[in-house]
């Protein structure tokens, strides 16, 4: 198990580096000139060139990438100019390892932007996760046990609606009515959990519902399908034959088997969501990692783009790895090689 984890970790690291290198390459292959974004009106070729130097895009791609990678391990200075460090040290920003870079478009070290953003994405992801698991699994079990009857049709129908309505629509409706027009909940504005848990939850309830509505849909169908399949398994018959009480059979014998594939899917979904829910964050103006990612792409902010790609892909790859390892614990028949 230990060696398995170690090997997987190594492949995670390699994968993340490949992804970031590809991002760098793609950025430079694009026809859009990032220096233009900082140029404004009255842009002449000399000003454009000056901007390019200020952004640090005048160096060859490989040099820039090498600097980025070394920054992750030993930290970097921005601007990386020994002369400036001597004459005007107040103008130099020192970014300690692991240094994700400096955004010349937002004029901040990326580590600062990320440390501001990730608690928001984390809060959104966790709340939504709990909500959708409860809704999805609860709904799925109820539907499976009432297969063919009206509760089943109602739940599956709602799930279909939840899945079909785009998150931006649900989000906007929730923002417009309960928040802005009726004032039932405050207009979402992030309050850190440790500052005020009640306010934290009240501000996040709308994004949680928006995401849960969408994700719960697939979990309802998944749970329902697995539940129906599991309840027809032989070992359920055995449990009944032993005289085990009805709900114990459903939950301890039935649900336990269903949880294995469900938890796997949930782990992957959660991993992806931790990297930021782009649409939801935009709709509710919550500036998490998703918002940061979109913002950096819109303004061609390469350092931030690369950092975001790295973070998101790491989260997904690590989530994959954790789920694989967890599987060895959840299902005793599986031997994690």
């Amino acid at each position: 198990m230990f060696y398995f984890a170690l090997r997987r970790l190594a492949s995670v690291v390699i994968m993340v580096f490949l992804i970031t290198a590809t991002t760098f390459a793609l950025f430079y292959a694009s026809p859009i000139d990032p220096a233009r974004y900082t140029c404004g009106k009255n842009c002449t070729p000399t000003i454009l060139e000056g901007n390019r130097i200020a952004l640090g895009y005048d160096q060859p791609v490989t040099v820039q990438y090498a600097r980025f990678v070394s920054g992750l391990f030993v930290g970097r200075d921005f601007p990386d100019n020994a002369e400036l460090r001597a004459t005007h040290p107040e103008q130099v920003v020192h970014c300690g390892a692991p240094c994700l870079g400096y955004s010349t478009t937002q004029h901040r070290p990326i580590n600062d932007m990320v440390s501001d953003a990730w608690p928001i994405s984390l809060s959104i992801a966790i709340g939504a996760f709990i909500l959708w698991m409860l809704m999805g699994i609860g709904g799925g079990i109820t539907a499976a046990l009432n297969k063919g009857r009206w509760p089943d049709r109602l739940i599956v129908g709602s799930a279909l609606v939840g899945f079909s309505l785009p998150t931006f629509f649900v989000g906007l409706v929730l923002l417009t009515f309960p928040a802005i027009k009726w004032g039932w909940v405050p207009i979402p504005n992030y309050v850190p959990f440790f500052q005020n848990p009640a306010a934290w939850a009240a501000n996040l309830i709308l994004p949680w519902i928006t995401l849960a509505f969408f994700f719960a849909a697939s979990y309802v169908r998944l749970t329902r399908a697995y539940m129906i399949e599991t309840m027809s398994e032989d070992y359920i018959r055995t449990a009944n034959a032993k005289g085990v009480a009805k709900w114990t059979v459903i939950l301890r014998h039935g649900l336990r088997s269903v949880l294995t594939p469900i938890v796997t899917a949930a782990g992957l979904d959660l991993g992806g969501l931790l990297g930021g829910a782009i649409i939801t964050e935009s709709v509710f103006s919550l500036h998490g990692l998703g918002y940061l990612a979109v913002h950096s792409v819109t303004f061609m902010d390469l350092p931030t783009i690369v950092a975001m790609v790295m973070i998101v892909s790491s989260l997904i790859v690590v989530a994959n790895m954790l789920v694989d390892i967890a599987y060895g614990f959840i299902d005793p028949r599986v031997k994690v090689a």
Partner: protein
Amino acid sequence: MKKIKIVAGVAATLALALTASACSGGTAAPTTGTSAGGGAATAGGTLYVLSGTPAEHWDPQRTYVGLNIEFGNRMFSRTLTTFAPVAKDGESAQLTADAATDTGQVSSDGKTWKFTIKDGIKWEDGKAVTCEDFKYGISRTFAVDVITGGPNYAIQYLDIPKNKDGSSAYAGPYKKTGQDLYDKAVTCDGNTITFKMAKPSGDFNQAITMTAFGAFRQDKDQGDKSNFAIFSDGPYKLDGPWTTSKGGTFVRNENWDPKTDTIRKAYPDKIVWDESLTQETMYERLIADQGDDKNAIASDQAPVTALANVAGADGRYTVVASPYTRYMVTNFKSKVMSNDKAREALALATDRSAYVAAAGGDQIVKATNSLINPALSSFPNTPLLAGDKGDPAKAKALLQASGLTLPVKINVAYRKNDTLDKVFSGLKSGWDAAGFDVQLSGIPAEQYYGTLQSPANATKYDAAWAGWGADFPSASTVIPQLLDSRSQISAGGPGQDYGYFANDTFNAEIDKAYALTGAEADKAWGQLDADAVTKYFAVIPLINDQFVFAHGSNVQGAIVNTTFTGYYDLATVSVKH
């Protein structure tokens, strides 16, 4: 209490009228809706500023976006001169002294400007604002590799030689290369600052209303790190950090002396700037007017989606002309458009009503036939050649007399989006009816201007859509930027003169206009605009964008200053509480 304030206000206005240099001009009357909020102003309270566009820079030398210039200037970055607040939306604003004692003394040849800085203006740490501070601030613009994003008028106006590649010989106060050249162009003698111009510049005292000509404390300069490290010499200072995409809070600068400041009333005790929103959300909240939003004003204009609902903010919204004009450029390098009659025919057949209809109506855009926008005193108000709809029949006759074979194939470029797709299909009908055969080329936004400015495309398009807004209310920020071939056209491309218009007579007239001031200058620029449109047919102005702004019900004194940037003028805003 109230009485005294009103009297004081009247006195101040009279004083302004007496001291301001003549700057009469046209008005840009608002179209519908009312604003400003009634009743006398109350001091104190917290004002909320909602923004859907995160500020890229607060560093005065790097601020180029109108709304940041306006709010920056009114809160923490005083300039030598500025435009005074107005009493009604869209009224013409007077050029007034701000940090200086007057609006400047210019030599007879127009090449030297002198300003004396008032006594008693202090930074937030109590130190006095000196001539050196202004000199240092302006010099930062020259450090083009660090201080990016801001206007470069300092480089353009000041008498400092240029290198072969067009860059300035002075590389800014960090590298100090050419520092002696700068020190000759800008000199301090006690509190008097003297500027030497590269050529006669009658409107320099208007250019310096931009915060790029504001003071900056050398000991506070951290280069790129200073971007949001606001250090104030105005009525408000930043309290706590500024967080991009979130905002910050401004509190009173106790060291600001209202006696030195005739511009800013500084009524609110606190200003909370919230830029975490989208424009849509921001306007939904302003219209809904709940809770703290009653004490809020918009910094950005309303997005088109909000216009449908803005009637719900009765008495709290306003529609004004924006600084932006959209126009067509005719390409003198294309075979067809080098034909004078062809250009005139295109202009005659332009159906502006189609533009207005496709863009969503009068509240959003208004037809115009001048590049200069109506808020400027030099607005020539050139009448439309053939009415709103154009005259395809007349145009066709002209085209037939031009010697070209009908239908005349032309390739028209525009910046692709849903609105302009509709606009151009309407414009195309008008032009086709005149005997043109229009092929439309919609180019994606990020590549649009880059494509037009690439020398490889010099003959590709016969006409193109473009947009421009004056940087400050002098037409010298419009006409030369768009039509002076000497400063624009080079081996690297046409610059902003997308149509490669190059006319020596026109250029000579530009030089003459530069040297004039006041009403004479206005007349000269206005004539240049009219000539470009009706004599040379180098440009076909289409519409002026309109801006819609809204504020909460407790807000008073929110008036749009269309002369100075075209946003709410913070100087007179107060909150009822």
